[in-house]
């Protein structure tokens, strides 16, 4: 008796499914799933299927063999561009022992790789491993099917190497049935989002394993090259020296106001709804605009067939997810999360932690529904919700020190992504969306109130059509429109909330001046764009251009005066932003890349106040240039080096005048530059191991126009190092993360003076940005174990140990009340986040 492998590649049913995947006319086309072809246009050809060349026989579980039990395990096998198996997962379980045996055997398979456009490419297949009790010897390994003669588009064409990185989306065929056949075949070409020449993607399954993320896929962004370490509990993303607000976050192409909840401890989207996440730190293509920084793109996961879900809890929060199918054409999934870390801290007698680094109470929910309409036509409907709340009252016998703080932030989005793939491979997507962002900050220090309430209705549409023009040119035309209608109320001092470049110390009260304004704005941007992927031998050129027409409107052009009714304003600015990138594949393993782009960003609604800001603010601008190389050392080990240079101008800064003109509290005299080199050494999944080492040396500076000297950007971190490693050992998984980052610049205090009216000292500052918070380093560990509980139920328990050395990392510089002594506010100590989940 022995286990028998299913060698389904040879089956006629497989050929049917291949025809489906490759787009060849076949009845099965009618069953193609909408979400699997959605996202971004596809245009590449599958020219060769992967072929199994080394088969490994599974060990039949002894107990089952004695009992005469046979079974079938359906596996999803991911195959790298070299033919090595990079990942094996169980798609349909037959029990823990059978699953383990099948996975172990499949991990040793070797293939001739699939080819897309005649180039080796990663692939994903579904493979059923049958355990049967038989006397005859096992049949020999199967031969793969030959490549279809007429291949059609199957996967999004990347700008770079096909499927070279994890996180790639899949284009799956339909279930074909049959006993000894492959159920699905998928070719991984590239992520749904178009790849940029500098683009770091992480597949959700790996991101969950990274230590320090507590299984949160979105948090892996903090460990990618080019990302500065954010202040603890801030959730900010600083990419290549750009301000946090300059980096855009997209989910399925729809913009979100925040990737993380206010504390930065959790992402705003449930990880089980995330297929992949990728970071483009700069020089992105024409599809995106309105940002001077980078891009974070999240692709939601295709909902699986059948009923699946989980319920879990850990130190931070509790969450649940469930998905099911309704008939043949509809699948629906929903997730919920509720944070309780604030109460955990409160229960563990750590008032200082909560006092200095307040933890909001967060919640989020997601709903996704996929409807397959007709042949290769589908609609994904997604609703995202997120909210954060924080209320604090610090009583004091001193009325000037009584503090009341209440912050609220949240958003919701609803969008529908329609995808259509034509018979000739042209792909059209249309994603209309709408939603609302809200944020509210209310503080009161004694008698001085500070309040900033912003409510923005957002609407828009993203559409694209990808067409193939001949064999070497792919043309993409698209439209990216976003409207933001905001209602803003603000009161308090001009200096709170602070801005980049403000000279202040941690905890310093704002000025005593008090103002108030209520205003409305409407910023509409319509951004048609076009770009082409042109292949000239080993070189791929991607020229593109984006034209943005910004309409900026507001309700008040001047501050209120007496009974004079306010006068609004409206203006239009049009920009032309050329973008271009190039990739030269010198060899199969070595490539050089370069990219250039011009970028524009409209003013924030908060800055268009006639009292606190300047209604006449226009667009801020930036130029990005990158050059790099990518070397594939082994089948799964890559080294990427990239140099970048960003130049920014017309940045919004505070007026330096003691008496500026009315409605001119802000100006656009800010200039910025950011440049550096970063290295990424990355090991893809290999024998259960994956990891990366990234190091960036950068310099980011700002200055007021006309100044001779540059000063460090408030978030400038010249050195950032991240080491991430994870190893699977059977059902165990262990991981580690080490981070080092330079401290952010600060302005030294060289003295103090006594404010006899307020009874407090004011600091006297030295040269701006000439000292730094001490450097940060931290080691985190993670261990998890999976338990098969039978009946398709499994449990995962994990421990995420943060700051295992209990290092007292500096987060801020604090001063005594008279500024004669200074000390360091340290970050979070050793914390064990323990939790688990039950999965169906």
């Amino acid at each position, binding site marked *: 008796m022995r286990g028998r492998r299913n060698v389904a590649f040879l089956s006629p049913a497989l050929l049917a499914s291949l025809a489906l995947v490759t787009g060849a006319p076949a009845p099965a086309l009618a069953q193609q799933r909408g979400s699997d072809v959605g996202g971004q246009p596809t245009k590449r050809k599958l020219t060769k299927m992967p072929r199994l060349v080394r088969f490994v026989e599974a060990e039949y579980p002894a107990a089952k063999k004695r009992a005469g039990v046979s079974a079938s395990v359906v596996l999803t096998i991911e195959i790298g561009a070299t033919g090595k198996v990079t990942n094996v997962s169980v798609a349909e379980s037959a029990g823990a022992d059978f699953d383990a045996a099948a996975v172990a055997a499949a991990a040793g398979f070797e293939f001739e790789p699939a080819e897309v456009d005649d180039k080796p490419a990663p692939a994903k297949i579904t493979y059923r491993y049958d355990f049967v009790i038989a006397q005859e010897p096992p049949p020999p390994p199967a031969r793969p099917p030959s490549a279809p003669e007429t291949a059609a588009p199957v996967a999004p064409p990347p700008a770079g190497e096909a499927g070279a990185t994890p996180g790639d989306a899949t284009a799956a065929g339909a279930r074909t049935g049959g006993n000894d056949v492959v159920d699905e075949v998928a070719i991984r070409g590239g992520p749904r989002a178009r790849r940029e020449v500098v683009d770091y993607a992480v597949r959700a399954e790996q991101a969950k394993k990274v230590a320090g993320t507590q299984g949160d896929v979105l948090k892996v962004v903090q460990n990618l090259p080019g990302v500065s370490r954010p202040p603890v509990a801030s959730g900010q993303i600083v990419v290549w020296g750009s301000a946090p607000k300059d980096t855009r976050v997209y989910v399925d192409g729809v913009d979100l106001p925040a990737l993380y909840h206010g504390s930065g401890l959790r992402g705003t989207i449930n990880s089980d709804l995330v297929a992949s996440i990728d970071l483009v730190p700069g020089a992105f293509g024409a599809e995106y605009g309105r940002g001077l920084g980078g891009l974070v793109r999240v692709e939601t996961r295709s909902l699986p067939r059948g009923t699946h879900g989980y319920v879990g809890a850990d130190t931070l929060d509790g969450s649940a997810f469930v998905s099911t199918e309704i008939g043949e054409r509809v699948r629906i999934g929903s997730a919920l999360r509720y944070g309780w870390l604030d109460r955990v801290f409160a229960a563990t007698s750590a008032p200082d932690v909560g006092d200095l680094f307040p933890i909001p109470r967060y919640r989020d929910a997601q709903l996704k529904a996929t409807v397959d309409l007709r042949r290769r036509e589908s609609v994904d409907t997604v609703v995202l919700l997120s909210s954060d709340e924080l209320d604090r009252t610090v009583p004091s016998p001193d009325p000037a020190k009584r503090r009341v703080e209440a912050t609220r932030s949240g958003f919701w989005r609803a969008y529908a992504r329609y995808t259509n793939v034509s018979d000739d491979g042209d792909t059209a997507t249309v994603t209309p969306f709408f939603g609302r962002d809200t944020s509210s900050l209310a503080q009161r220090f004694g008698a001085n109130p500070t309040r900033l309430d912003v409510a923005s209705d957002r609407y828009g549409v993203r559409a694209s059509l990808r067409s193939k023009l001949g064999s070497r040119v792919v043309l993409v035309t698209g439209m990216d429109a976003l409207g933001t209608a905001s209602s803003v109320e603000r009161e308090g001092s001009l200096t709170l909330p602070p801005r980049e470049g403000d000279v202040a110390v941690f905890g310093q009260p704002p000025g005593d*001046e008090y103002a108030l304004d209520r205003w409305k704005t409407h910023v509409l941007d319509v951004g048609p764009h076009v770009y082409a992927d042109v292949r000239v031998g080993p070189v791929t050129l991607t020229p593109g251009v984006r034209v943005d027409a910004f309409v900026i409107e507001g309700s008040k052009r001047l501050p209120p005066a007496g009974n004079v009714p306010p006068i609004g304003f409206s203006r239009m600015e049009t920009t032309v932003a050329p973008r271009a990138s190039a990739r030269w594949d010198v060899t199969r393993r070595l490539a050089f890349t370069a990219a250039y782009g011009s970028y524009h960003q409209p003013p924030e609604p908060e800055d268009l106040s006639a009292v606190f800001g300047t209604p006449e603010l226009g667009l801020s601008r930036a130029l990005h240039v990158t050059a790099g190389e990518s070397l594939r050392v082994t089948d799964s080990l890559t080294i990427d080096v990239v140099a970048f240079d960003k130049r920014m101008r017309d940045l919004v800064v505070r007026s330096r005048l003691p008496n500026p003109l009315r409605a001119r509290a802000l100006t656009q005299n800010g200039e910025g530059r950011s440049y550096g080199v970063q290295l990424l050494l990355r090991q893809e999944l290999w024998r259960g191991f994956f990891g990366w080492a990234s190091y960036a040396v950068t310099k980011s500076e700002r200055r007021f126009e006309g100044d001779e000297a540059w000063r460090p950007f408030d978030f400038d971190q010249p050195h950032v190092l991240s080491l991430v490693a994870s190893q699977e050992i059977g059902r165990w998984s262990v991981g580690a993360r080490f981070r080092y980052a330079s401290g952010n610049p600060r302005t030294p205090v060289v003295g103090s003076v006594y404010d006899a009216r307020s009874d407090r000292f004011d600091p006297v500052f030295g040269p701006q940005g000439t000292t730094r918070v001490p450097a940060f380093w931290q080691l985190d560990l993670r261990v998890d174990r999976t338990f098969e509980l039978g009946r398709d139920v499994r449990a995962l328990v994990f421990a995420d140990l943060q700051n295992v050395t209990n290092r007292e990392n500096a987060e801020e510089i604090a001063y005594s009340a008279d500024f004669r002594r200074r000390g360091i506010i340290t970050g979070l*100590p*050793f914390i*064990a*986040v323990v939790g*688990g989940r039950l999965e169906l």
Partner: protein
Amino acid sequence: MRRRLHALVFGAAVASAPFACRPDLGDRESRITRTQVLAVRGEPPEAKPGETVSWSLLVASPEGPISEPRASWALCATPKLLTENGAAGAACLQGGVRPIAEGVPTAAAALPPDACALFGPEVTSADLRPRDPDVTGGYYQPVRVTVTDGAETAVAFGLERVGCALANAAADVTTDYGRRYVANANPELGPLEATLDGAPVALDAIPSGATLSLRVSWPAEAAERYVVYDLASRALVERREAMRVSWFATDGSFESDRTGRSEDELETATTNAWTAPRAAGTTHLFVVLRDIRGGVAFATHALVTR
């Protein structure tokens, strides 16, 4: 097995107890460890440009109050920038001042005629942005005081409230404001009362190490009512001054460095606990009463511990 795991999954949300993150930054604000300006009192505390104001000081040292401090006096002549949080601009620490007096404990001068233009809402052109008032509707002329005591130098800013016209209000509101607004007056500070376990204690016979309850009061009229232009409703509203007491001592320790009453609290007294030093001797106590519009009163006391 399954049930046990279930319990493990949902019961294991445990965090280690985090340690405190706040650094120790030394002595409390109420402890006098060096020569220090504790208050600058203008009489009157609110004046219009051209009116004469006299200023006096409360200066403390670890040895006790300095009755005749050597102080240099100057009026700031440069407004602070929009980017500055402090009471006065950095320029006022350098050359941007109008000197008043040198080496004297008190000074008197007329408020500059351009005080409302430099520090208030008056603008020379309608295109310029008027300065913002504080929450009480006030504008302030900074007065720089530099006290030298041996090798130590302490710099303080007194802020003289300047009577300026309303900015950006309708004409009828401006007229009404001029009619109803009453300039601020300095408050009066009542006697210091000390009790131990509810019984009065003489200030010159305090048991060593005892924790006293100290109480200061002020007349009800000291917390004045005043009108302020409310930016939200664009109308005048009436408010009551908040009162704040700053406690300082050369030895011992207070329960709170500052106490007081907000504008909603109608009480006219505040208490604090003070623990006397264990060693016998004299401790100098300083009490400063401030109203929210810049009025000041202060007193010093010698507490003898036996």
